[in-house]
């Protein structure tokens, strides 16, 4: 036992170190890697301080909010752990009994919320199962011997600590995104976020029309390249390849070619046909083309073949070759050979390269035209013989090739991305209409709020639909729970939460509530992070950013439910789920749900009047399945209130101080 304790505290110590380094470096402290190359964490900035100086006021706010969310999440976890060990000094009155009982079974009350949540949503099928699964392992305290319980608690704590360690290692970048109008937004992206989430985040910040063309792009001025990230791609990874002195930029812009293949598949799959036929293509024929090429057992790559100009290694001369695109790569026909497949020579395969548009290559490389594209390993940032430059006769064929290569490289993901993007776009249309006056972030207008919730949902949207359709009824309980901290009254919460997710209208009420909340922050930490999100946003101007993280939330929720042992230890079995109302904790569950829900199920379309209930279920499920995967759950999701104690590094606390000062002003 002592050993374990020792180990545990050692780990906590390490945790702190990591957290601090996080604060200082902005970047995920890759403690292990000492390589210089690995150091380029902050993008475009030499170090965080510098970058901070460059930030504008509201950027700082946004960033601050992000950071605090992270910090709080970490703290919460920490707090829960500590609770387990010592008497829960932090725990506020809200907290139910559990915390104090150390040796007793259910020290960690926060688990109970989850169970409670599930209980409340009895209606939904999934929930019950989750609850039941939890229940069995640690039959309410009585059965397991004290020793067992203690042992388990320790194990759980260690698990948590490990998780924290992993969490602390999560790489995060502060990214400055350039807008079309020359302005910029700053946001924090962690390595688990994909471009879709970042886009949603940007939608939130920019109040654009959210159409499917919006893209996050990277430019490389040195090589005069640019490309739009695919929505399923991870953003941090490619950005990490940038060099310290890189002048690369991240842009947020509309790129009509991004999903053109799904809007006009005939232009890619029947490109040999005459232009008029293509233009007059009927919708049902387009649909059929998409079916044939994207919905079968294998993805079909457009049948491209043509003469392209290839830049010769190290020279500024270009030679022509007959190239062919196949699912397995780009090939060319060697001189004097036929076009037969077996004679083709492989020019490049797509596993390790990305495709980029070249800008102004006529000047830079004496290319025959300016319609050039490039294939290179994403890590290559400077001129190199390993970069392949190709030049097309016109922009039309360039787009054909680039799109064809993307289809070959990304396959079904592209189609999935498009479907998701479409859903987002249609949702946003709806939202915008309902709330015509989307105000700026700075204004604490209700609309904004509404939006943020939507955003959070945005992730969830997919999942929601499924569940919603199943049983809409249950929703109310979760909502109520969400609100819990401040006004436990069921009245307010019930309807809005659900609506909020899908529609903007419902949101307003929520907003108000959150405002009231401010106080609880510290306590909240103890509780599972979930509830805070919405309120936080209100306080902070930048909240939206946080919302995106949903996935993490899921993780959180996942923790409690999954490991039965867990339940036994930390959080005693979710006590008697039945009375969620009485327990303050319940709220967290719903929160999780909201944020967590998004990640689980992917595709379903978003029904507007989604019921929170639906969301709940998915969340529950997810958690259940995730059980074992504790590390995954990014706490970030849960945007805690700014109040959280300054457990983080110096930098963090400074930031927080700054924030707190700001608040009163507002």
């Amino acid at each position: 036992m002592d050993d374990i304790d020792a180990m545990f505290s050692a780990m906590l110590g390490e945790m702190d170190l990591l957290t601090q380094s996080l604060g200082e470096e902005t970047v995920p402290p890759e403690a292990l890697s000492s390589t210089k190359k690995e150091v380029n964490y902050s993008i475009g900035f030499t170090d965080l301080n510098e970058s901070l100086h460059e930030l504008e006021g509201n950027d700082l706010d946004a960033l601050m909010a992000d950071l605090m969310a992270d910090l709080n999440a970490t703290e919460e976890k920490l707090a829960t752990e500590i609770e387990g060990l010592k008497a829960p000094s932090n725990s506020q009155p809200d907290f139910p009994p559990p915390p104090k009982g150390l040796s007793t079974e259910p020290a960690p009350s926060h688990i109970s919320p989850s169970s409670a949540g599930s209980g409340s949503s009895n209606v939904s099928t999934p929930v019950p199962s989750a609850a039941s699964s939890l229940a069995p392992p640690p039959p309410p305290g009585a059965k397991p011997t004290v020793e067992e319980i203690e042992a388990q608690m320790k194990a759980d704590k260690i698990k948590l600590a490990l998780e924290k360690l992993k969490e602390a290692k999560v790489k995060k970048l502060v990214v400055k995104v350039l807008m079309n109008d020359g302005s910029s937004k700053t946001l924090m992206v962690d390595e688990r976020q994909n471009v879709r989430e970042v886009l949603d985040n940007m939608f939130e910040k920019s109040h654009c029309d959210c159409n499917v063309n919006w893209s996050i792009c990277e430019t490389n001025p040195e090589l005069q390249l640019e490309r739009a990230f695919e929505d399923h791609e991870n953003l941090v990874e490619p950005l990490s390849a940038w060099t310290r002195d890189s002048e690369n930029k991240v842009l947020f812009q509309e790129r009509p070619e991004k999903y053109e293949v799904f809007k006009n598949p005939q232009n890619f799959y029947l490109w040999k046909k005459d232009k008029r036929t293509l233009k007059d293509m009927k919708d049902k024929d387009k649909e059929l083309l998409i079916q044939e090429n994207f919905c079968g057992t294998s993805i079909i790559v457009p049948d491209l073949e043509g003469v392209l100009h290839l830049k010769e290694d190290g020279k500024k001369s270009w030679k022509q070759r007959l190239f062919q695109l196949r699912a397995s790569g780009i090939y060319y026909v060697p001189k004097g050979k036929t076009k037969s497949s077996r004679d083709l020579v492989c020019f490049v395969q797509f596993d390790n390269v990305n495709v980029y548009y070249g800008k102004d290559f006529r000047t830079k490389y004496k290319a025959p035209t300016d319609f050039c594209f490039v294939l290179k390993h994403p890590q290559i940032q400077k001129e190199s013989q390993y970069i392949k430059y190709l030049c097309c006769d016109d922009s039309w064929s360039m787009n054909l090739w680039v799109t064809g290569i993307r289809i070959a490289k990304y396959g079904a993901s592209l189609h999935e991305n498009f479907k998701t993007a479409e859903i987002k776009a249609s949702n946003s249309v709806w939202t915008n209409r309902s709330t015509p006056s989307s105000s700026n972030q700075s204004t604490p207008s209700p609309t904004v709020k509404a939006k943020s919730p939507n955003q959070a949902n945005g992730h969830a949207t997919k999942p929601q639909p499924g569940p919603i359709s199943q049983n809409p009824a249950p929703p109310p309980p979760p909502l109520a729970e969400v609100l819990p901290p401040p006004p436990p009254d069921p009245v307010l919460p019930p309807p809005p939460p659900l609506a909020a997710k899908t529609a903007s209208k419902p949101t307003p009420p929520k907003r108000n509530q959150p405002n009231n909340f401010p106080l609880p922050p510290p306590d909240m930490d103890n509780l599972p992070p979930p509830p805070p999100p919405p309120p936080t946003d209100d306080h902070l101007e930048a909240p939206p950013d946080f919302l995106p993280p949903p996935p993490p939330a899921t993780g959180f929720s996942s923790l409690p439910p999954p490991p039965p042992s867990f339940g036994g230890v930390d959080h005693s079995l979710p006590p008697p789920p039945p009375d969620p109302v009485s327990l303050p904790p319940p709220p967290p569950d719903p929160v999780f749900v909201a944020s967590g829900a998004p990640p689980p199920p992917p595709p379903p379309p978003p029904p507007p009047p989604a019921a929170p209930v639906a969301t709940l279920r998915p969340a529950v499920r997810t958690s259940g399945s995730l059980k074992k995967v504790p590390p995954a759950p990014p706490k970030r999701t849960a945007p805690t209130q700014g109040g959280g104690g300054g457990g983080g590094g110096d930098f963090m606390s400074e930031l927080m101080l700054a924030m707190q000062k700001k608040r009163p002003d507002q």
Partner: protein
Amino acid sequence: MAAWDLSVTVEDLGLDAPPVTISVASDLHIGGVILKLVEKTQIKQDWSDHALWWEQKQRWLLRTAWTLEKYGIHHKPLRLGLPNGITLRLRVCFSNPVFQTVMGICRMLNIRHPEELSLLRPIEEKKKKKDKNLAPEIYDLTEVPLSSVSRPCLYNGMPAHFADSPEMEAIYKMLSVTQPPPAPEVIAKQYRPASVVDKAHINGRWLDSSRCLLQQGIQENDKLWLRFKYYSTYDMDPKYDAVRLTQLYEQARWAILLEDIDCTEEEMMLFGALQYHISKVAQSEPQIMSNNPAMDDLDSALQSLEVKMEGEGSSASDLLENMTAPELTDYLKIFRPKRLTLKGYKQYWFKFQDTSISYFKSKEESIGEPIQMINLKGCEVAPDVNVAAQKFLIRLLIPAPEGMNEVYLRCENEQQYAQWMAGCRLASKGKTLADSSFQSEIQSIRSFLAMQKTNSSSSSANASEESINTHSLVSPRYHKKYKPKQLTPRILDAYQNVAQLSLTDALMRFLQIWQALPDFGLSYVVVRFKGSRKDEVLGIAPNRLIRIDLSVGDVVKTWRYNNMKQWNVNWDIRQMAIEFEGNVNIAFSCVTADCKIVHEFIGGYIFMSTRSREKSETLNEELFHKLTGGHEAL
């Protein structure tokens, strides 16, 4: 119902008299047969004490109300060549349209969606005198009773009639499990189409699906091939389609090996790697092709339970252990080819951790800062191995902002090489040594090394477990181009991307890559377009027709079915006329196949495309017949 000839020996005509032949249909009852016989023989006497004796079956057909079909008279044995090369002998219906015959066969073999398959006359095998003793084994299924139930009840995941005896089970296993790679000589001996025209000739061999076997001159014990005819695989579910999936894979594999469909060298290597993997996994993992959903559920439930227990049971120290990532350390030699420097290999103490390799002057100094640390994430890893020469090189192309850095690691022996190579492979994909696939990666590298060993020592074609000749995995073209040991690294290279696939996933991947080939799904026929003076080739695909100019070999025109308004066959002059939207009309006569075959292909594909809409399980035979039957449908 199609009519066929029945020969009956009539005792009363004398023992030496030739049998009387009457035209019957399967729905004719025994009484009717006797009546016809009486009419035909013109002998007036009391026949009431006569009856029909079925000599082959040694039984009396006494129930005059039973039809011939009910007695199974029209079911005769046929030798059936399957896509996997195995020949079965089984009783099939000779008097119903081939479409129904195929349905019966598929029912017996447990293949869903029989509409995608059909029968064709085999290519005459070149007769070699010495081949006698090599006569392929024939697996006999003639004792299997024919059931008319559309879905046979399953027992242990196979149709009940296969569960009767160990012999039958063995046959079912042959149907549902992939065959080991064929010996290179076997591949070389097979007929390979050398041109599009050759391929077109094969399509002239399809039987007419609206007429019966008898009408098409098929005799008892003749040999036919069962093949997937329409490349429009619908609703493939590995859980229920063990035989179907396996046979489709086999057909695809042979199409690749015999260059029936063209692919590039890179693609061939990948197909080779997948074949290797599939045969390896199929041998090692005893098929749990259980089609029993209840069992499946139980299995998965048990599995998840196991996982759970593991998770809960793991102690804190286990967890910690998992947290401290495993690492490799050893003395290796490194060589960094840079321009102008030819320093050669230098020995250092290497440490492999997470996805990075670092090296130190010596083991003793490994606590401090490494001389260099190389992160392998996103790098390219290639083997450079010669077992005979004991050369074990790992070639790394490591991406850096300035380009790719080339680094060679030299290992001392197989064991070391396998470990470090496996580590590099995983790291290049961003996985660490802690990844669960690490051990299996090591295993697969070692087995590949073993392959190279056996290849270099003896080039025997015996494809036993561990020693697959790489020539068994590629088409004969590459037998000439590369020696087996030259092929090994290339296939190994492709193999690293597929080595972790499960059997089913590997099969599916093979099919996907096959289906993504540009020429996939094309059935060729040589035709003469109206108004044209030369032969051209018509390619029939699941969604379109293409016209290929033989002189150039290029596709000159594409017509999609969804633009098709109607098609007609002029049976008198054997010409097909097709009208597309926009007043596009084409007409052609068929040179290498009967126009009924072309008509059936087109109608068949249109039928296939209707399937997704009507979700019903039952096959719409009538519609198929309408679309493919031609004048017989009228």
